[in-house]
């Protein structure tokens, strides 16, 4: 155990001396795929819930295919599959892009998480109370303004618990990156394993690192949910709520105050 830590701690955390490895690489994979996935998934989710079938149907097909197949297969398809095609090899730009394992990994991860995130956001948009949308229309908002000011701010917040789950799952999914020779935590653990034959400690160390990152992410999302979903938090009306409202100068009548809080 101490042997592995002495020999590999730097590689496990950020660098093996030549390039970014270990935790830094895993976090980089996670951050890039999550941000691309997020940016793509918002317009796709809007298209997914569109009443026009010609917008909704292609997005449905995309999420269906990417959610119905394992990420490992998608990575193989982009990494070894596409690069075996002559069309890709003969094209200069495509050749340069798909030759690098990291690019293939990022592309497949971003598309995969985008498919899941699109469904999460689409579900949240569909669950928007129809009164809010009607009120927006009654104010004469254009569809774009309606989405920008009414639907998306509330839907994205309500999607946060499901989204945080997806981010954690994506963190776990990044461990298949070693298939494309990307030096993430698991790849370093494999190297440590083949160097020392100390299997349990090598993989155990990797598991511990993933566990720590998971816990930190969960804690961060809890904080974000507490702040961003404050309006959905159950009000503690039993004790403090009533007392405060009774003391406030505007509530002359106790019953009126109660109606207002529960309305």
């Amino acid at each position, binding site marked *: 155990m101490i042997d592995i830590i002495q020999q590999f701690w730097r590689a496990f955390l950020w660098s093996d001396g030549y390039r970014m490895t270990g935790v830094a690489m895993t976090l980089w994979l996670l951050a890039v795929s999550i941000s691309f996935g997020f940016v793509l998934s918002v317009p796709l989710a809007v298209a997914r819930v569109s009443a026009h079938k010609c917008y909704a149907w292609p997005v449905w097909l995309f999420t269906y295919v990417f959610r119905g197949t394992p990420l490992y297969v998608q990575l193989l*398809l982009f990494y*070894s599959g596409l690069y075996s095609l002559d069309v890709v090899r003969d094209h200069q730009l495509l050749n340069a892009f798909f030759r690098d394992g990291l690019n293939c990994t990022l592309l497949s991860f971003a598309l995969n998480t985008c498919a899941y995130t699109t469904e999460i956001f689409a579900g949240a948009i569909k669950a928007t109370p129809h009164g809010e949308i009607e009120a927006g229309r009654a104010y004469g908002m254009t569809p774009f303004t309606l989405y920008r000011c009414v639907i998306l701010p509330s839907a994205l917040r309500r999607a946060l618990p499901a989204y945080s789950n997806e981010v954690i799952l994506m963190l776990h999914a990044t461990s298949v990156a070693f298939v494309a020779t990307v030096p993430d935590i*698991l790849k370093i653990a494999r190297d440590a394993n083949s160097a020392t034959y100390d*299997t349990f400690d090598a*993989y155990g160390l990797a*598991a511990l690192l*993933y566990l720590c990152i998971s*816990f930190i992410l969960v804690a961060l999302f809890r904080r974000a949910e507490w702040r961003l979903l404050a309006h959905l938090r159950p009000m503690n009306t039993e004790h403090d709520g009533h007392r405060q409202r009774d003391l406030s100068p505007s509530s002359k009548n106790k019953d009126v105050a109660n109606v207002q809080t529960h309305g």
Partner: protein
Amino acid sequence: MILDGFGPLILAGTWVTIELAVLSLLVAFVIGLIGAGGKMSSNPLIKAIATLYTTLIRGVPDLVLMLLIFYSLQIGMNNITEALHAPQIDLDPMTSGVLTLGFIYGAYFAETFRGAFLSVPKGQIEAGIAYGLSSWQVFHRVQFPQMMRFALPGISNNWQVMLKATALVSIIGLADVIKIAIDAGRSTYRVFFFTLVAAVVYLVLTTLSHVVLVWLERHYSAGVREAEL
């Protein structure tokens, strides 16, 4: 032929994948029920162990756990057989794949079942006791059938995730549909095509299980009135 004679092999690989997924589901189901029981236990030690199990397993990627358990299981077995001066038992990839996947997804199932058990109204259990049923009868006749309705959405989700996780077992060396597709692609120089075939196989499997799960959901929701909006 379009598959270059690899058709039967790919079918065999698909069957291995299905077998692996179904057997792991059974293991995970049993471990999940035990884990849920442990998490709801009044004994603080059992509760702590069950909580530790579900928290640790769900915080670590399944691939890392798979490698960890797969190699450690074999080394542990070797140590035991060596101590007993018995011949070495080699675990084949299928057995260790089933045990590993079952152990990992048992943690997810435990959480699903715990939530579902808590959703069964207490009055139902009390009514069962009042009728003089034994605790096994209460579980088997009253709690379990009602729990299944609440657990089904979670079970469907876990099953779909687990079905896709079987793809990772080819990394341990199981000759499942992925491994065969990779080998077929290498020997025919049509890697893209054969990987695509593997993807289609998985798409068909997830689609089929989706149909079955919708049917099951209808079956277990018999007698439940839903408000029409």
